[in-house]
């Protein structure tokens, strides 16, 4: 484990403050259950979790929160946001919660959460359909989905195809509805997704779970296995689902499994 103490550049240049959207659903009696904070991936806002997972998590007795990164959802605009600013958004919201929180990051925000784990001692973390980027991943995305990726090279938002986000089971009306709400991350953050340093080691040794679908055409089996291995585990797989597990037809299975994992006494 390595620890980095001196961070002069960050102390000298803190990210600009911004208004942040945080949706919540509080159970009547949370008992000892830790708060769960959902961090949607690039292009998505808190709405993506407000659809099903937020309520369901609350019904299972966890105080549940969903946030939007800057420039996403109802959070303040930030066209020049960096990955560091996104990480800052996550640690700001996490530290504002009443108790030590579980961080759940989806897509590229799984990377943001992984980076935030080095800055905030989370109770536990769940990386859902993680997109850790890197040049190799960017190159294969370019081959698989040139229509979405080429414009991103010129700073346009990454636009995955609907077929990548959802399985065919999801009714077309739902797909269209969700797709219409998609926005985009800043061009800088997209570039940083291609070229960034590996996330530093987490502080406080939180347990980390990786969840995804082997049929996800953005973060497939190989990507899931690689990320899970980094945290010393194996991914929890839900075949037949798209990238957006939380919006797909069978949304309940993965979140139920995640909460079961959190309920285990050693987590």
């Amino acid at each position, binding site marked *: *484990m*390595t*620890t*980095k*103490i*001196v*961070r*002069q*550049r*960050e*102390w*000298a*240049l*803190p990210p600009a*403050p*911004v208004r942040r959207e945080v949706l919540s659903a509080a159970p009547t009696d949370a008992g000892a259950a830790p708060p769960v904070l959902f961090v949607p991936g690039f292009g998505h806002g808190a709405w993506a979790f407000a659809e099903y997972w937020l309520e369901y998590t609350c019904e299972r007795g966890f105080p549940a929160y969903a946030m939007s990164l800057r420039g996403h959802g109802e959070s303040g605009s930030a066209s020049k946001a960096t990955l560091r600013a996104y990480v*800052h958004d996550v*640690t*700001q919201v996490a*530290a*504002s*919660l*009443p*108790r*030590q929180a579980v961080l759940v990051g989806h897509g590229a925000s799984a990377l943001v959460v992984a980076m935030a784990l080095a*800055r*905030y*001692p989370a109770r536990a973390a769940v990386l859902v359909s993680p997109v850790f980027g890197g040049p190799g991943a960017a190159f294969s995305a370019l081959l698989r989905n040139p229509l979405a990726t080429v414009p991103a090279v010129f700073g346009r938002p990454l636009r995955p195809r609907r077929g990548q986000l959802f399985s065919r089971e999801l009714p077309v009306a739902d797909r269209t509805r969700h797709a219409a709400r998609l926005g985009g991350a800043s061009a800088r953050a997209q570039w940083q997704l291609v070229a960034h340093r590996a996330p530093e080691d987490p*502080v*406080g*040794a939180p347990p980390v779970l990786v969840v995804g679908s082997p049929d996800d055409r953005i973060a497939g089996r190989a990507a899931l296995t690689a990320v899970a291995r980094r945290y010393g585990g194996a991914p929890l797989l839900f075949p037949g689902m798209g990238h957006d597990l939380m919006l797909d037809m069978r949304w309940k299975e993965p979140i139920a499994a995640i909460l079961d994992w959190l309920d285990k006494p050693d987590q």
Partner: protein
Amino acid sequence: MDDQYTVRPDTAASAARVWHDGQPVYDRGDTVCVIGAGGSGLTVIKNLREAGFSVDCYERETSVGGAWNWRHDRSPVYASTHLISSKPFTQFPDFPMPDDWPDYPHHSQMLTYFERYADHFGLREHVWFGTEVARVEPLRDGRRWDVTVRGSRGGQERTLRYAAVVVANGHNWSPRYPEIEGLDDFRGQVLHASAYSDAAQLRGRKVLVIGGGNTGCDLAVEAAQQATRCWHSTRRGYWYAPKYVLGRPADQANDLLRWLRLPLALRRWLFTRLLRLTVGDFSRLGLREPDHKPYESHPVVNSQLMYYIGHGVITPVPDVARFTRGGVEFADGTSADPDLVVLATGYQPVFEFASPELLGIDADGRPRLRLQLFSRTHPTLAVVGLVQPGSGMFSIAHWQAVTVARWLRRWGADPERAAAAWGRRQGKPERRFVQGRVADSSRHWFEVDHVVYLRALQRSLDELEAA
């Protein structure tokens, strides 16, 4: 709180297995004892818990926050206190202060911050409030500790045995009184800054403030706003720094220049240039030229002092030569007739519960620690927060706590090897963690430069990880 319940209730029930001076000792096994639940104590509890230790913390007040809880009798903060260190340096590195707080939060926000930290990490359940540590004594093996506690308002003493003790009792609560000729005969009111809390105490008075540290300057400004007259006496000249330079909080600007690797000499030059361009020549305002270079003394950060001196509302005066019944004479032969004297002459460290040799305390009362953190003689005794950084306290206290936790974990895993490693360090010369040098003053006993010091902690952590 009822004193009967302030001492650990569980110890009353559990049977004592050992005895010390005819008193029962309750053995707490591998538990670590923490003294104080101010900001430093809280981060010690949090980081020890995170490393898997069980912790008993004793706090003589009935709530957390230490100095920043101004309801505490010993709190040195006054109603108008705002931080002098900006948020990124002052906060715990893994628990950021809210973005919508100002660069320099108010003391009430600091208290809120500590309360939220305590709740967030569930720390209060490990703290015994209203309980004071009276004695800390090593067992004969020099490794384990008998700690005697009692209710802050009296009550029966209890002794408990711990595997380690981490002291976080703060060093800004016991006044350092100056010895000045004639002070006892002076007819006006004399107050140490620690007893000053509210501007109403100055209203309509003729006030002399003694001391040019951050307290002295804050209080001179407050007197300028509230009192009928204000003299400000300092025994040397200082580099009064503004709170903002180059469009950002001064400490952030300074770290930006350091990150850009500007050498100290160049930063000194830039600092004096900036002051010359804004305030101009100090002596024009009646101030003495500093007797040391910039960055050679604990920074005094105050944007308003110069403003009020320039408006003639604060009269800078030299060191006090003597007090008379009705007034005061200064070193340059001038005099004044204040009716209230505020001694902003700083604070001294106090470890009333430990015998001096445990912390290497010399005749002046100055402790000597290894890495300004560990006892030089006892491997399981540490003091967190006994530093005075030119920036904020709590990022440093956090990393000190992490270092102590890692060291104790290593100690617990293999005491003999750890003891051998400890022995190899014995006798290494003491070092200061400052850039260049600092002016000779008791004010600088604990001064550290945050970058120099944190780099040293980084090296220690790396060594502990490698071992």
